[in-house]
């Protein structure tokens, strides 16, 4: 790997840089604070490398354009914030059903509705999971640094292609807007085209399992629909086929679970008090654990979640067996905490720590809560 020089980069910019490194050459979007810099960067960079940037009339059309470009064989990205994310939900469901890869970046701001456009929040965690209707699978990454914005966007693009599954990069305003020192690896990232390894008996929705996407215009003809469909893409309402199709959508994520679910633990091996969090809140929690464990050797640990969906159930189960108390700081009124509680199964007491005034949870707040349970 060639020598690389560290640079100052913004979270939103890192997202765009990561997308381009992962082969994204099509962006359609409608600008919205605090995600606009993603669009700005893509608008500046894509035309120079033969890519396409379109500012669409709204978020619904943006999502549709992204899906269209994807099935035409391009790697695609769109970025938005809460209000726009709501609008994208219908087409997002279509992409899940029709198994069309795409990456949607949602830089969360304070909601509901127009909310406080410039204030940070983590209020879209459940929307990212269940925003579109039906019993669908979804992958959601939550970066906690500028570098994570970069590499999780790359992971999002690649997983999306591999699994033919939309992936959401759920940033928050703090991470999206802050600038910090990062070292971006130089050189070209190997971008493998899924259509490079098409079997001779290729079916667009092979019931045997994961099958690569062959873009339109590459010699295979098939039907694409949001209706439940058979292996060839034609609509079906046949109960066994419907059931099999829905299972298959979920099974592809289950099969690659360990590639998808990314977490990181720091702190005491057998913590009495553990913190579970994601996004910008990880930073406050990490500064608490550094002080409590690295300096003072207190039995405290932090499980940070780079992936919130599929939920890291296994990791929470294991943590709950170790810890007496699990604190879940979130910049909302309590969303992921319910999930943590579900998998802690009463093995550990789960304590929410919430803030929803448009300010970040600071280390003092977490430290105080940790102190209460030590």
């Amino acid at each position, binding site marked *: 790997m060639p020598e690389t020089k560290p*640079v*100052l980069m913004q979270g939103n910019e890192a997202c765009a840089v990561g997308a381009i490194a992962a082969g994204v050459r099509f962006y359609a979007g409608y600008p919205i604070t605090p995600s606009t810099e993603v669009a700005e960067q893509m608008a500046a960079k894509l035309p120079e490398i033969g890519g396409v940037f379109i500012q669409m009339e709204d978020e619904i059309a943006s999502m549709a354009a992204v899906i269209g470009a994807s099935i035409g064989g391009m790697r695609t990205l769109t970025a938005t914030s809460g209000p726009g994310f709501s609008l994208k939900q219908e087409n997002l469901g279509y992409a899940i059903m029709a198994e069309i890869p795409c990456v949607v970046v949602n830089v969360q701001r304070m909601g509901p509705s127009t909310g406080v456009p410039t204030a940070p929040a983590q209020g879209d965690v459940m929307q990212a999971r269940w925003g579109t209707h039906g019993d669908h699978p979804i992958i959601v990454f939550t970066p906690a640094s500028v570098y994570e914005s970069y590499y999780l966007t790359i992971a999002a693009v690649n997983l999306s292609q591999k699994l033919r599954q939309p992936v959401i990069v759920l940033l928050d*305003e703090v991470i999206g807007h802050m*600038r910090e020192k990062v070292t971006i690896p130089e050189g070209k990232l190997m971008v493998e085209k899924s259509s490079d390894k098409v079997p001779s008996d290729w079916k667009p929705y092979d019931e045997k399992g994961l099958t690569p996407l062959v873009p339109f215009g590459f010699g295979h003809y098939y039907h694409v629909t949001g209706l439940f469909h058979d292996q060839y893409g034609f609509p079906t309402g046949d109960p066994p086929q419907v059931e099999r199709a829905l299972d298959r959508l979920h099974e592809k994520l289950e099969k690659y679970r360990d590639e998808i679910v990314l977490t990181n633990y720091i702190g005491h091996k057998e913590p009495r008090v553990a913190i579970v969090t994601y996004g*910008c809140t990880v*930073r406050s929690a990490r*500064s608490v654990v550094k002080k409590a464990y690295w300096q003072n050797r207190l039995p405290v640990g932090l499980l940070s979640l780079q992936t919130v969906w599929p939920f890291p159930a296994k990791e929470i189960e294991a943590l709950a067996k170790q810890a007496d108390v699990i604190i879940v700081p979130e910049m909302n009124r309590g969303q992921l905490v319910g999930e943590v509680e579900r998998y802690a199964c009463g093995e550990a007491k789960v304590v929410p720590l919430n803030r929803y005034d448009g300010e970040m949870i600071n280390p003092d707040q977490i430290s105080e809560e940790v102190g209460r349970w030590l």
Partner: protein
Amino acid sequence: MGNRQEILLTGAGGQGLILASIVMAAAAVNDNKNVVQTQSYGPEARGGASMAGVIIDVDTIEYPKVTKPTVLLCMNQTSFNKYLPKVEPACIIIADSTYVSGSYSKDYKVLSFPITRSAKEGLGREVVANMLALGVINAASGLINREIFRASIFEMAPKGSGELNQQAFDLGYRLYEKGSGQNIGASSQTPQ
């Protein structure tokens, strides 16, 4: 926690403080330091009060927001009145005497320099007052290697304006070396 330095740049929207914070952060990266830059978004960045923060540390920076500034720059009266009471007395406080005057608590040691006026009179361009302020800050704090800082300014300045911006930075050093002015508060300090 290492050697965390927090620099808070405050003033009015349009004075180039956010850009100054980005240039400073880039200079810190070039000087091989860890750095995080944040800024206030929203209505204040569009004309009202403006605020930008830079955190520099040898250690990894976790919490990205400025909580205890070690350097405070006030480029107008409103920001001076608002942020001065929020900092600790040990903080290096730099005020632009072009816009800031009046009394303040004697607990604080305020360094005042005619930043904007010097940019206008010394270089004929008020617009480089932000780079001049960076010169003053770096002279007062010694946070970043001067030559690396100068080179970073050249690198980030719009084409053709690199040297002018570097001159402004150097003028900031000269202002600091001449010493703080007596024209803010000094004669009218009131104990509080």
